[in-house]
């Protein structure tokens, strides 16, 4: 049965051009992000490698373009293309880590609520309800802002990335908890769980061996869409100045610093990181749309 399902999804995938295209784009972006150090000719965040003589060069196809810098340079002589790859590395990393954190908290609490019921269930549901009343953006901004004010400037350089992961991760867990909880409640009534219980299996064994694999499907779909949201949220936080520091920029930070030069006509410093961000999130959303249809889980 498992094999058949896998097979079906592969078949469906091969018949959907938009899914193939978007996953290829994503693979290319991930490749560039991982191997940024090898395919670019400068590390844009090492001040020793920057030359002010190379600053504010437009993209190569415009007048005064330089073929060393295909997408041009910013006001510090930083190669926009290289900054793009290094920036998307950070964006992807923060996005993935925060989605994993949300999944971990959400699925964990959802499993507990659905399996143990009673007080656990009430507490988890109330907590999720409480958090759903406030938009994730404000929760994340608040968390990042409060923690940022409590630590020193030097610490911010290294710690802010984890703070942002924590803030985004904590702002998005209720979705996973809700879906997992209702899925567990349905699965617990199924014959195979009752049979396992009759055979004397321990609750923990049933929970992790039987119930967990069956609630993962819906969670994978939510997590795909959640990844797009997390990357966008990170970019927004960084753009608003409550995100990762300027010394290790993500796409959002690049856009924030670049937007100061928009009025001087240096559109390329903002345009390419922006395009990269849209391309990444758009591809993830298309993939998520397809995955939802293909897996067809009972999402509420």
């Amino acid at each position, binding site marked *: 049965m498992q094999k058949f399902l896998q097979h079906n999804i592969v078949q469906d995938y091969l018949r959907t051009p938009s899914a193939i295209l978007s996953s290829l784009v994503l693979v290319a972006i991930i490749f560039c992000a991982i191997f940024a150090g090898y395919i670019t000719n400068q590390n844009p965040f090492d001040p020793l490698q920057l030359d002010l003589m190379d600053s504010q060069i437009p993209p190569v196809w415009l007048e005064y373009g330089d073929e060393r810098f295909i997408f041009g340079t910013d006001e510090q002589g930083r190669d926009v293309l290289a900054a793009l790859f290094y920036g998307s590395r950070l964006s992807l990393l923060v996005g993935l880590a925060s989605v994993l954190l949300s999944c971990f908290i959400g699925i964990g609490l959802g499993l507990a609520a659905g399996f143990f019921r009673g007080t656990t269930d009430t507490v988890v549901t109330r907590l999720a309800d409480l958090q759903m009343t406030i938009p994730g953006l404000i929760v994340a901004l608040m968390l990042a802002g409060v923690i940022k004010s409590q630590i020193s400037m030097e610490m911010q350089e290294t710690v802010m990335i984890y703070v942002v992961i924590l803030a985004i991760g904590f702002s998005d867990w209720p979705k996973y908890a809700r879906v997992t909880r209702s899925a567990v409640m349905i699965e617990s009534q199924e014959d195979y769980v009752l049979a396992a219980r009759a055979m004397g299996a321990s609750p923990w064994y049933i929970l992790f061996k039987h119930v967990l694999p069956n609630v993962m499907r819906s969670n994978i779909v939510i997590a795909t869409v959640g990844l797009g949201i997390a990357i966008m949220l990170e970019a927004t936080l960084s753009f608003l100045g*409550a995100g990762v520091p300027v010394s290790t920029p993500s796409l959002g930070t690049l856009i924030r610093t670049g937007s100061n030069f*928009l009025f001087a006509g240096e*559109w390329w410093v903002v345009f390419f990181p922006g395009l990269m961000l849209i391309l990444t999130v*758009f591809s993830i*959303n298309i993939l998520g749309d397809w995955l939802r249809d293909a897996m067809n889980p009972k999402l509420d």
Partner: protein
Amino acid sequence: MAIKLLQRLLQSMLVLLATGFLAFLIMSFAPDPVDNIAGDYATTEDRARIRAELGYDRPFLVQYGEYMVKFVQWDLGSSLRTSEPVAELIASRAPATLELVLVSTIMTLGAGIWLGIYTGVHRRSKRTQAILTSSLLGISMPTFLLGLLAIYIGAVELGWFPASGRKAVDTWMWTSSLVSLEGWRSIFMPALTLSIFNVGLFIRLVRADVLEIRTMDYIKFARARGLPEKTINNKHVLPNAIMPVINVAALNIGVMIAFSLITESVFQWPGLGLMFIQSISFSDFPVMSAYFLLVAAIFIGLNLLADVLLSIVDPRIRRGE
């Protein structure tokens, strides 16, 4: 009915109390105000006396209770940065945000309903496909990038609109951007930016409604009576498709107020959101927690209102079915 309503009201109050507790926790991160008042040469006794005078020596929960009572009385403390009362700060910033949200909601509803009905009626046309794909693109586009794009095109390239700021005129009640041409020019791009994310959402919503309504029996009967397609769409599909959308739009106002902080930050629009962003970068805790609690209260209030209205309109919900 009355009992159900009372229950719902009680539930909302509890949620408000809980968010108030979070807001109060945030306040406790602020630097100790006693340091500020007492100065460097104060003795321990002096400090203790000031602490007692200000009421900071009382139990945590008592102070929290006082904080909530003060919130209800609209006494929100004063800003650490400008020492201005937060309530006055909010009152002076609120019109900018409310006007932005109002104009943006009208834009969203207009475009969303029109395009949603179009894509629902012409199900398989090329244009429908294009509209649906661009609505997905709209959802994938971060609001701050849209804002920058709007500034580049509308202000830098074309020069039709101001790049940032708000032009407002004093009216008899508040300072408004909706009474002068300058004001309209300044509000147009921020409102457009704020609405684009939502337009995609509303197109999909209206389209789903239209598709469902068109399978109903009364539409079949109308068609059997020989009514022209246009009359069917205008007289039968449209009114029925719009009702649920209005409900969602009302709930959506809370989301718009929250997300307006991105737009306000891009366009330097002097509303509540910009106030919140500034308070974060200056660690101005009273302003931060007041905004947090205010937005939560608006959300809780709108949810409650929607539930009450729905139970009045729909007897099934009233009877708890």
